[in-house]
């Protein structure tokens, strides 16, 4: 049979193995080289919370999914075209994600009796998983890697660490990927500390590629030819990196030093790690003794005039509740980034969810409103963080920016913007030296925002704190004053709506069905709507980046549709919020709480089911 290279619009590949098998790196390299090749892509790592769970067990399986397309790709993909399984446990953990037409590439050397038993197999693993009809390629990867490196002088341990490169080489052949990028990567990765590792890795990846070609591993190979995308300079970025950079960008625009007080917590930690690198850009980071200290140090820094930030995930948000109230009461700018994970309590630390929304909106004592925003894709985290900081500083309010594990760890190519394209950020500093006594809670008539007089501003000494005060900043128990201040704080947050963009409807501007989403479901909803339209269904879609306040035109948009379907990864928290904010509409719900993103298919089916 003649070998053909078939052009395909997109392909989903899942690399899976033991936590120590290097699958995250393999996946990342495959994604990066495809990006450089000009493809659009989206990635998502799926890893256990154990660092090195017992070898060969299902609990220890680490996966990395990459979705490559001709143009822009909006999700990491539901089901995969190729599964790389480095051991039986990886096969068991991921078999359910195989397309009917999928190829399964397994390391035959790892399918011995001991490892099969460890993964709970008693007979033929493929039959047991009912995937024997897929295109299964058994390759003795360990053995071939040993063979490839027998003259390298490396010890067996080092040799075995290279087997992911053999796999990568094979995957590159199957999808017609050039190896140049990998060669360049190996050079820069090992040049300084381990130059002796460059050549062996290079050899293994090349041998893997050639081996796949020689054995005619698949009847046909595929290629995903890049479409012409927007021209320009691109880079890959994860959501957490983008949050960190967006905050640094905001600090630069505002002319403020950036302070981040934070405590490590999955999956938010890498924001603090990223910020800690960039001390050269006016960033101070503090790894505090606990979550409460993270936000409190930031509040202190805000009173001293820094752009103050704290980062966390679910349980940490709970711990920060009282201090958030302090930031609301003192009306100091503060950005809290919550990279949501599965809850409640410790929940599912490494899995994604959108179930902190209600806590962000309501989770404090007293009448305690603040601005709640959401990021909708890994690259969008940059703009979202920038905007969160701008709103906090210009409206003198804490802002909670909701991200998600899926966004924080996921990555996508990003056309590098110019900072000239971003709007200015104008801190509301009081003008010093006018001899006027500072009234801390005197408000701007338009926005109701107060002025900011950081410690050190001459002649503007004043006191703030958690107790209710009047406009002069003097303690007040007066009933009328309390009601006034409660209403003003609420109205101040509501008036942020004047500064945020209107909702934009994707699709017909009126009609039968409007899909509503917020946060990281963006790509899945977008893709689902495309599929529904391709199947002849008329459907429109809006996506909320602002939760509190809602965009000004929300009611007007909702009124143009007969039915509204709110899709989210929780039991209906945004739908509940909409019911309190805009009770005149009925909201249908599409919900999922499995610690996983939506599948595009989930949304398509939900729409089909409502008829």
């Amino acid at each position: 049979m003649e070998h053909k290279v078939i052009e395909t619009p997109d392909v989903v590949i899942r690399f899976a193995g033991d936590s120590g098998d290097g699958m995250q790196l393999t996946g990342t390299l495959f994604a990066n080289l495809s990006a450089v090749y000009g493809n659009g892509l989206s990635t998502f790592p799926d890893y256990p919370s154990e660092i090195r769970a017992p070898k060969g067990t299902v609990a220890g399986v680490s996966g990395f999914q990459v979705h490559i397309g001709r143009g822009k790709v909006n999700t990491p993909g539901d089901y995969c075209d190729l599964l790389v399984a480095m051991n039986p446990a990886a096969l068991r953990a991921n078999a359910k994600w195989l397309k009917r037409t999928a190829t399964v590439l397994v390391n035959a050397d790892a399918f011995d009796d001991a490892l099969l038993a460890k993964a709970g197999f008693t007979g033929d693993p493929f039959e047991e998983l009912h995937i024997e009809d897929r295109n299964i390629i058994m390759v003795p990867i360990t053995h071939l890697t040993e063979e490839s490196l027998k003259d390298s002088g490396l010890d067996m341990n080092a040799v075995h660490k290279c087997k992911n490169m053999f796999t990568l080489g094979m995957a590159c052949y199957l999808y017609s990927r050039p190896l140049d990028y990998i060669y360049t990567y190996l050079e820069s990765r090992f040049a300084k500390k381990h130059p002796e590792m460059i050549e062996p890795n290079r050899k293994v990846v090349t041998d893997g590629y050639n081996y796949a070609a020689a054995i005619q591993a698949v009847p046909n190979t595929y290629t995903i030819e890049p479409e012409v995308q927007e021209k320009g300079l691109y880079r890959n970025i994860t959501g957490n990196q983008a949050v960190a950079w967006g905050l640094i960008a905001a600090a630069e625009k505002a002319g403020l030093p950036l302070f981040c007080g934070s405590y490590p917590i999955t999956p938010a930690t890498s924001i603090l790690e990223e910020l800690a690198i960039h001390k050269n850009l006016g960033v101070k980071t503090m790894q505090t003794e606990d979550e409460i200290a993270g936000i409190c140090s930031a509040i202190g820094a805000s009173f001293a005039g820094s752009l103050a930030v704290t980062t966390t995930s679910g349980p940490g948000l709970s711990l920060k509740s009282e201090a958030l109230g302090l930031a609301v009461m003192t009306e100091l700018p503060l950005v809290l980034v919550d990279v949501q994970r599965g809850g409640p309590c410790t929940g599912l630390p490494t899995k994604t969810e959108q179930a902190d929304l209600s806590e962000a909106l309501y989770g404090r004592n007293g009448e305690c409103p603040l601005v709640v925003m959401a990021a909708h894709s890994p690259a969008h985290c940059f703009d979202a963080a920038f905007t969160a900081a701008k709103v906090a500083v210009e409206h003198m309010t804490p802002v909670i920016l909701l991200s998600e594990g899926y966004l924080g760890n996921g990555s996508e190519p990003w056309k590098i913007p110019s900072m000239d394209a971003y709007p200015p950020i104008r801190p509301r500093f009081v003008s010093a030296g006018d001899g006027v006594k500072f009234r801390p809670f005197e408000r701007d008539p338009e926005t109701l925002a107060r002025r900011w007089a950081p410690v050190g501003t001459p002649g503007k000494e004043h006191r703030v704190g958690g107790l209710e005060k009047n406009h002069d900043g003097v303690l007040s128990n007066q009933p009328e004053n309390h009601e006034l201040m409660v209403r003003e704080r609420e109205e101040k947050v509501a008036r942020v709506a004047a500064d945020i963009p209107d909702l934009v409807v994707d699709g017909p501007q009126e009609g039968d069905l409007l899909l509503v989403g917020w946060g990281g479901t963006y790509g899945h909803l977008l893709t689902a709507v495309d599929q529904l339209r391709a199947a002849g269904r008329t459907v429109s879609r809006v996506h909320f980046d602002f939760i509190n306040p809602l965009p000004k035109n929300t009611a007007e948009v909702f009124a143009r549709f007969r039915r509204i379907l709110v899709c989210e990864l929780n039991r209906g928290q945004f739908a509940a919020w909409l019911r309190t904010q805009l009770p005149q509409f009925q909201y249908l719900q599409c919900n999922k709480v499995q610690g996983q993103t939506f599948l595009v298919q989930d949304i398509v089916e939900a729409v089909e089911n409502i008829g």
Partner: protein
Amino acid sequence: MATYTLKDFKSDQEVRWCAGCGDYSVLAALQRTLPKVCEEKGIDKEKVVVVSGIGCSSRLPYYMDTYGFHSIHGRAAIIATGMKVASPDLSVWQISGDGDALAIGGNHFIHAIRRNVDINILLFNNRIYGMTKGQYSPTSKFGTVTKTSPYGTVEEPFNPGSLVLGAKGTFFARGLDTKLALNEEIMLAASRHEGTSVMEFLTNCVIFNNGAHAELSDRAVTDDHTIVLRAGEKMLFGKERDKGLVLDGWKLKVVRIGVDGVTEDDVLTHNPHEDNLGLQMMLADMKGPDFPVALGVIRDVPARTYDHEVAAQVEKVTAAARVHSVDELLHSGSTWELK
């Protein structure tokens, strides 16, 4: 730079502590010390900030005409730390009670000490929860009868001095509400010390724990029941200054000058600048009836400060950096061009 007097640090707010509360004198000492602090440091008063937690003593910032932050229960030390790290040129004074600092805020308290951030902590210790109207605190003595311990407490108290020294604090001093001049002296020493300066002020709660420290402050006994320690001075005390402290093996002992051939030369000389904690720990731990309670600066040793290290690292990294703007950051590392 302006020169200041006490009046410059008094706010227009009426002080609302109970008549006879020990907090008044500590407030007065602070208002009298800050003009000297500004003069010594060459700073204007807008660089002074007073940060407190929750409790009676934590109302103090409202009575100061400085920048002030009356925050939430237990968190003042870390809020003060955030301010100092963000703006190292500030003179930061953190107010806390025994419940605020040692119960709900214990974690932030010990970590401030561990980091040795350059802030001054005034710990008002009246051994009771006053604001909530009389419950025992982490410094209430074993057996103390309060509303939440009607049959007496069955737990041991913290000695703040042992806690600070146990965490290798670099500065610890103890004052007493009746000793205004000593308290000023302590505050000035704390201001000069670079690092976390913990000042414990033993204060009376006239309503819920009246006489909390009467055995130390009563005029009739104060000289015999306390010893004021000063660097380079002999550890002498008593109305006649005829009693002293000596080492007896590994322990401290009270001796009387002229008895059993003891002379002043035998008496220990106080050195708060000694890095070894041994003797300072014993001094901080002393209590009646066998020993006088030590007042004054017990420990004051130089060490790296957190705020300085943070700033120095920023400076060092910045000097060596190739990226100096966000635009440069966005273009750093792996990028590719789509043409």
